[in-house]
């Protein structure tokens, strides 16, 4: 994988990069280039991330005092519902697949584009349509059901804009299904010659598994929301207990999607971490095949654990036992992944650059979130902590500590490939560390107060919890700074950042063999693959026994990247 320089020098005249292949607004809005669509998505999810983040800021502000100073009860309900709906469906679910997945999947498998480029563009427009509906819902006054839309409150009693919010999620669901279909077919059909299934980077495997979960789980959410909308709009009694309907059926249908959705949010993050950890420890991934089976295992078992969200909703002891057991089982492949990342670090040459700090932060936070998941998987503890801040802390550790850290790690790792510029590493490292501490500051107190009895979704609380809430809100301010900082220095780097060169990190993978930013067609000539992934050092050789010259070289910030020779002005 070192002949990139040869290809470049042989190709005297390079095609223009995808960024320069058309400069009008229309050329962006009608593009079928997966890289440009990735950037369209990047713009829209960033927008929604900050709207959802603004709601979170207001929530933390409100919770500083126990008597709730700023919002009415109803206003507070609408606030946390908005935060949940936007963050789950308009940021977390599409985040890594539609941006980095869209950008990198064809590059990583050595294809010109995804299998259905126009469907890819359509998925963005569907996502925008859903986004407009959710914004309309927000402007008209919001919805107060919580992001879970539980019946019969949502279908019969809520006075919020339930149908609008449900329709927004319904439409956005179609957009992710389109992306999922596209990814599955792309991986099956468009792999480069020699790119066998067991040579695929783990990022591609995670995108593939995520796409499968999206395609099979999202329609169930769609139908549960459709039934909810039909009940609310036309009075068809589907979940209405007065007519013998069962509100718990809605919960089953909802969680049949929404638990796998957790894996839609976190599997792509696993892929990102596998790429980053190998690159910055200059080691092959430990247990490549085990990693693949773990990814697929999580995707499959993840479909059979939804009942653990409903232990207190009324369920036979036998069903509860099975769901509890399976929830423990699904932790096994996740643990395999964490151990394998750790073993990959073992005796590696570790470079603490920004993407790596985000990745290491991910491993710590994901482990905490995962272990607390075992607490909630066990029946007696779950009954104690149900609907408490313990659960809030648990899933934020997975989704924010895990997925959002990985999102920022991916952003810094592939930024040079996407823009052709390097981000200023000092600032990036600073914000990575800030994010780690800000996050723990915000959410660790929530474990404690949740266990002590602080209920979620309440804005009036007993005064003894104030110390935890104030700590949490202070942490949220730090976290907000850590999210805003990259906006500043990444924008700065677009204009003043050092030119990246093709492969600033000395990473393996086909995406690093083309130019930064890549041309419209991705590769000047069809890449061929004749070796496995992550060849950072020779196979079957113990660490430190490898001849140094046979190791793939890495210099922090790509200072002596051979492909960059002659690029310094």
């Amino acid at each position: 994988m070192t002949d990139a320089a040869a290809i470049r020098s042989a190709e005297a005249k390079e095609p223009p990069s995808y960024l320069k292949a058309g400069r009008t607004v229309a050329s962006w809005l009608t593009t079928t280039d997966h890289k440009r669509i990735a950037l369209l998505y990047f713009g829209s999810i960033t927008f929604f991330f900050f709207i959802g983040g603004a709601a979170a800021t207001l929530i933390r502000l409100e919770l500083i005092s126990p008597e709730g100073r700023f919002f009415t009860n109803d206003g507070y309900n609408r606030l946390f519902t908005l935060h949940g709906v936007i963050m789950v469906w308009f940021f977390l679910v599409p985040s890594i697949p539609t941006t980095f997945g869209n950008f990198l999947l064809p590059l990583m498998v050595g294809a010109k584009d995804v299998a259905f480029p126009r469907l890819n563009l359509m998925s963005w427009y569907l996502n925008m349509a859903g986004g407009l509906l959710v914004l309309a819902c927000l402007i008209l006054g919001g919805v107060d059901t919580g992001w879970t839309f539980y019946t019969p409150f949502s279908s019969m009693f809520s006075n919020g804009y339930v149908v609008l919010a449900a329709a927004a999620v319904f439409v956005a669901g179609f957009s992710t299904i389109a992306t999922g279909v596209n990814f599955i077919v792309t991986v099956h059909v468009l792999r480069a010659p020699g790119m066998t299934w067991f040579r695929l980077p783990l990022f591609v495997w995670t995108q593939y598994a995520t796409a499968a979960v999206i395609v099979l789980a999202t329609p169930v959410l769609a139908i549960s929301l459709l039934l909810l909308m039909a009940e609310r709009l036309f009075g068809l009694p589907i979940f209405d207990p007065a007519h013998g309907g069962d509100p718990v059926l809605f919960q089953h249908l909802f969680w049949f999607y929404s638990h796998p959705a957790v894996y839609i949010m976190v599997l792509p993050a696993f892929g990102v971490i596998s790429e980053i950890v190998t690159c910055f420890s200059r080691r092959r991934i430990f247990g490549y095949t085990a990693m693949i089976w773990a990814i697929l295992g999580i995707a499959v078992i993840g479909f059979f654990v939804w009942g653990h969200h409903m232990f207190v909703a009324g369920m036979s002891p036998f069903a509860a036992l099975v769901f509890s057991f399976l929830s423990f089982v699904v932790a096994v492949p996740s643990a395999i992944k964490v151990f394998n990342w750790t073993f990959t670090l073992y005796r590696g040459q570790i470079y603490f650059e920004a993407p790596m700090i985000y990745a290491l932060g991910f491993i710590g936070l994901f482990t905490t979130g995962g272990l607390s998941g075992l607490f909630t998987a066990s029946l007696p503890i779950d009954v104690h902590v149900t609907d408490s801040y313990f659960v809030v802390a648990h899933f934020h550790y997975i989704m924010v500590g895990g997925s959002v850290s990985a999102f920022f790690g991916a952003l810094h790792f592939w930024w040079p490939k996407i823009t052709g510029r390097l981000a200023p590493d000092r600032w990036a490292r600073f914000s990575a560390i800030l994010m780690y501490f800000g996050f723990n500051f915000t959410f660790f107190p929530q474990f404690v107060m949740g266990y002590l009895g602080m209920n979620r979704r309440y804005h009036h609380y007993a005064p003894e919890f104030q110390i935890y809430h104030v700590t949490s809100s202070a942490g949220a301010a730090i976290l907000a700074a850590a999210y805003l900082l990259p906006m500043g220095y990444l924008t700065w780097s677009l204009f003043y950042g050092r030119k990246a060169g093709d492969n600033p990190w000395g990473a393996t993978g086909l995406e690093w063999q083309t130019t930064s930013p890549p041309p419209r067609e991705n590769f000047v000539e069809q890449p061929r693959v004749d070796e496995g992934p992550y060849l950072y050092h020779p196979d079957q050789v113990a660490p430190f026994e490898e001849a140094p010259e046979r190791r793939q070289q890495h210099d922090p910030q790509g200072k002596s990247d051979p492909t960059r020779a002659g690029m310094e002005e």
Partner: protein
Amino acid sequence: MSNDAALKEPFESLDRQRLSAALGMWIFLASEVLFFGGMFLGMTIYRQIHPDAIMEAARETNVLFGSINTALLLISSVTMVLADKAAEKGLKSAVLAFLAATAALGLCFLVLKGFEYREDIHEHLVPGPDFKLHTPAAQLFFGFYWIMTGVHAVHLTIAIVAVSTYFVRIWRGGFPFEGSAALPVLGLYWHLVDIIWIFLYPLLYLGGRT
């Protein structure tokens, strides 16, 4: 020559492109099956909880309309397959004739369904205060009846629009129907709409009459 016209980015061979289109549609159909699966699941559970009320309600559907519509859709699937086979052989006029027949049969289904809906409304079979039956759970059956047939009709409408669109494109000429994966893929979708009805028909029309 027509085969080259059908080839699109990012593919380099028509076979791969056709394979991709079919694979993509199959995956989407898996998604659709789970979409309808949610409704079938709900119906099954309610039938278990309230067997008598659901049976009583199921006797109120109009089996004549349902049976004729089943026949129409089954025949339309045959004409869809024939259109596809004719396209493989390059018989343009046959393709057009069979596509037109498919769309027309689908349209007949919708028209009949409309008449059936009118009768249902006339007989107070819409859940609400003046519902015909007095067992509360009987309304559950008709809740599902309206949603399931409504969602199916939406799917059929999309399928009819798609078939008509391809009819016009082929009729005008210039559409490379021989090499394109459009008709087989359209056929897959059409058959899904048909197959879902094959499950809806016994569930909604025959179940109460055993």
